[in-house]
C-alpha cells in the first residue's frame, strides 16, 4: 500500500526539471515524448536543458568511474535544476536512486560536498542540495486525480501486468512512496485508467539486467530474465508495464534473444508507465513510438485497435 505521508510530500509544481534517460532517448524515444507530453497535459510544465548528461550510474556501477568521479557528475546534473530553482523529475529507476543516494550522501557529508564544490566552482557552478528528485511514476501517483479527469482513451479490457524494478523500491526502502515488497501504486494507476491488473508470481523479481551483468555475465542474466518471462507468459497480460527504461530494454530485447536462441515464443509487449499514461491520455500514436519496440509488436497493434488509435 502506498505510504500517504510520502505521497503528501511530493509537490504539485507548475514547472519541473525534466531529466532524460539514456536508454529512453536512444532506444525507446516514446518514453521521453510521452513523459514530456503527459506532464504538460497534467498541468506540470517540464523544463529541459541540453547540458544534462547521463546520471553516471552505469559507468559507476561498472566500476569504471570511482565515486570520486561520479559524485561531481551527480552534483553537476542536480545543479542544473537548482539554477532554475526547480525539482527534478526522472524517468528511470537508476537515475532516481543514483541521484538520490549520492545527493543524500553529499548533503550529509560536508567534507565531500566541499571538495565536490571545489570542482564545480572551477566550471562556474555550485551544488547546494536544494533540488529534490522525483520519479515520474510518483508524480503520476500524486497527479492521479488529474489523470482520471483527462483519460481520453480508456484502457477498457486491456490486461496489464506490472514490473516495478528494483532500484526504486529496493534502494528506496525508506524514501519510495510504496512498500518495497508488495507495492500497489502502479496497479492503482492502471485501474484509474480503466485497465485490468493481472497478477503474476514473479512480480517483484529483478528484470535480470544487473547493471553490467547483461554484458559480462550474460548467461546469468538471461537465465534470470527467462524465469521472470516464464511467469509473465503464464499470466498472459496484454501489456507489461515497467517504470525503468533499463528494465524495459532488458525485458523487451531478451524476449527476442531467447526466441532466437531457444526457439521460445515470448511475445509480451513491454511498455513504460509514461507510454501507458500517454496512451490513456490520448496522445497520437506516433508520439507513443511503439515502432521502437521489439517484442510483441503485433499484440501492441491489437491493443491499439481495441482501444482506438
Amino acid at each position, binding site marked *: 500500500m502506498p505510504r500517504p505521508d510520502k505521497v503528501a510530500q511530493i509537490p504539485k509544481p507548475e514547472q519541473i526539471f525534466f531529466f532524460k534517460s539514456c536508454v529512453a532517448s536512444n532506444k525507446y524515444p516514446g518514453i521521453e515524448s510521452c513523459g514530456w507530453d503527459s506532464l504538460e497535459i497534467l498541468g506540470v510544465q517540464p523544463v529541459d536543458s541540453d547540458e544534462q548528461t547521463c546520471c553516471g550510474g552505469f559507468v559507476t556501477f561498472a566500476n569504471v568511474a570511482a565515486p570520486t568521479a561520479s559524485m561531481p557528475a551527480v552534483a553537476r546534473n542536480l545543479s542544473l535544476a537548482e539554477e532554475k530553482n526547480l525539482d527534478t523529475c526522472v524517468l528511470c529507476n537508476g537515475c532516481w536512486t543514483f541521484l538520490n543516494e549520492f545527493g543524500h550522501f553529499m548533503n550529509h557529508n560536508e567534507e565531500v560536498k566541499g571538495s565536490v564544490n571545489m570542482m564545480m566552482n572551477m566550471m562556474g557552478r555550485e551544488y547546494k542540495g536544494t533540488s529534490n528528485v522525483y520519479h515520474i511514476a510518483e508524480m503520476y501517483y500524486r497527479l492521479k486525480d488529474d489523470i482520471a479527469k483527462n483519460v481520453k482513451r480508456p484502457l477498457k479490457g486491456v490486461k496489464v501486468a506490472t514490473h516495478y524494478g528494483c532500484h526504486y523500491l529496493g534502494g528506496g*526502502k525508506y524514501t519510495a512512496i510504496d*512498500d518495497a*515488497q*508488495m507495492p500497489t501504486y502502479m496497479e492503482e494507476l492502471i485501474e484509474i485508467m480503466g485497465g485490468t491488473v493481472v497478477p503474476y*508470481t514473479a512480480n*517483484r523479481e529483478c528484470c535480470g539486467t544487473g547493471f553490467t551483468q547483461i554484458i559480462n555475465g550474460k548467461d546469468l542474466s538471461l537465465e534470470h530474465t527467462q524465469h521472470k518471462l516464464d511467469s509473465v507468459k503464464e499470466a498472459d497480460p496484454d501489456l507489461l508495464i515497467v517504470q525503468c527504461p533499463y528494465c524495459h530494454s532488458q525485458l523487451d530485447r531478451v524476449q527476442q534473444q531467447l526466441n532466437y536462441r531457444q526457439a521460445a515464443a515470448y511475445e509480451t509487449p513491454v511498455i513504460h508507465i509514461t507510454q501507458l499514461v500517454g496512451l490513456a491520455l490520448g496522445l497520437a500514436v506516433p508520439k507513443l513510438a511503439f515502432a521502437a519496440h521489439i517484442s510483441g509488436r503485433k499484440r501492441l497493434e491489437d491493443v491499439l485497435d481495441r482501444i482506438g488509435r
Partner: protein
Amino acid sequence: MSKKTLVIGGGIAGITAAQKIAQNGGEVILIEKEAELGGNFAKLAFTFPVLGDAKALVAKEIDSVKSAATVEILTHTVLQSCQGSAGDFTVELKTATGTRTENVAAIIVAAGFHYMEPTAYTEYSYGRSPKVVTSLEFEKMAAENRLPQGKARVAFVHCVGSRDKAKGYRYCSKICCSYSAKHAIMMKKANPESLNYVFYIDIRALGKGYEEFIRLAMEEYNVRYIRGRVAKVIESEQKLLVRAEDSLIGNPVEVEADLVVLASAMEPPEGSRELAGVLGIATDEYGFFQEAEANVRPVNSSKPGIFLAGSCTQPMEIAASVAMGGLAASEALTLIK
C-alpha cells in the same frame, strides 16, 4: 490506612499474585480490562515443554482465585488515575458500570503482553493471503480443527518482528523457538501426514526441558529445521512459495507450503506507556515496564509500592510469570503487614 492491594491484569501473573496475597490474609482487587480472566494463557491450546492442556490449567487457577474470599474481581475495568505513595495510594477505577475510588497499600502491575501484528512484513504476504497466519491464529485454528488436511506442508517462520531493527524490535522474544516447536508437534499430531518445516536463525531454548523439547520435535515428530530466515512468501496459484536460504549448506531453498505460520514477536501490552504515565513509573525504550534493578530487584518498579509481574517487563514464559507473580505478592505483603 488501607490494607488492600490492587492487581492490574488478570493473566497468569496477576492471578498468581492475587492468590498468594489472599492465601496470606491480604485483600486484593483484581482488575482486568477484558471480559474474562486468563489473559494470553487462556488463548493457548497447549503448554510447553510439557504438552499440558492449557485451557484446563488456566481454568483451575481462575477457579481458585475466584473462590478466594478476599479477592474482588472486576472485569471490564481499567485504572484511570493513581495518587499517593507506597502504603497509601488512591486509585480511581473505571468499571463497566461507572467509576469507583479505592484506597490501596500496594499496586501490582501484571499487564501482560501483546502478540505483534506482522502487517509491516509485506514480504510474508500477511494479511493478503489467508494461508499466512500468526501463531496466535494458528492456536485458534488448532482449537477449531481447521488445520490443513492430507499431505500438507506447513512452514513455521521464527523471528517475525523480533531481532529486526528495520521493521520490528531488536530484542529476542525468547519463547517463539519453543512455541513454534510446540505448534509443529501439534500439527503433526493433528495430521500425521503433514510435513513441517521450521525456519530459524538460532534456536534459543533456554530452560529446563526446552532443548530436549525441540530435539523431540526434530527427532520424534520429524520436523525439518532449516537454518535461515525466510525472505519471501509468494502466493502462487493454490500454494505459497516460501523462499529462504539453507545457510548450513549455503544454498537458497524454496518450499511449496500450504500454510505459513509466523511466530510474531511479543510486544509490550497496548497502552503500556499510558498506564506507566498514570502510575508514574518508567518504561524502557520498547514500552515494557522498567524494573528498578534487573538482577536482584526484578519486581520493583521505579516507584516504591508499585510492583511488576509477568511479561509486561520482558518477554517471558508461563513458569517465569508465575514465579514473578509470587515474588510481587510477597513484596506487596510487606507493605500490608
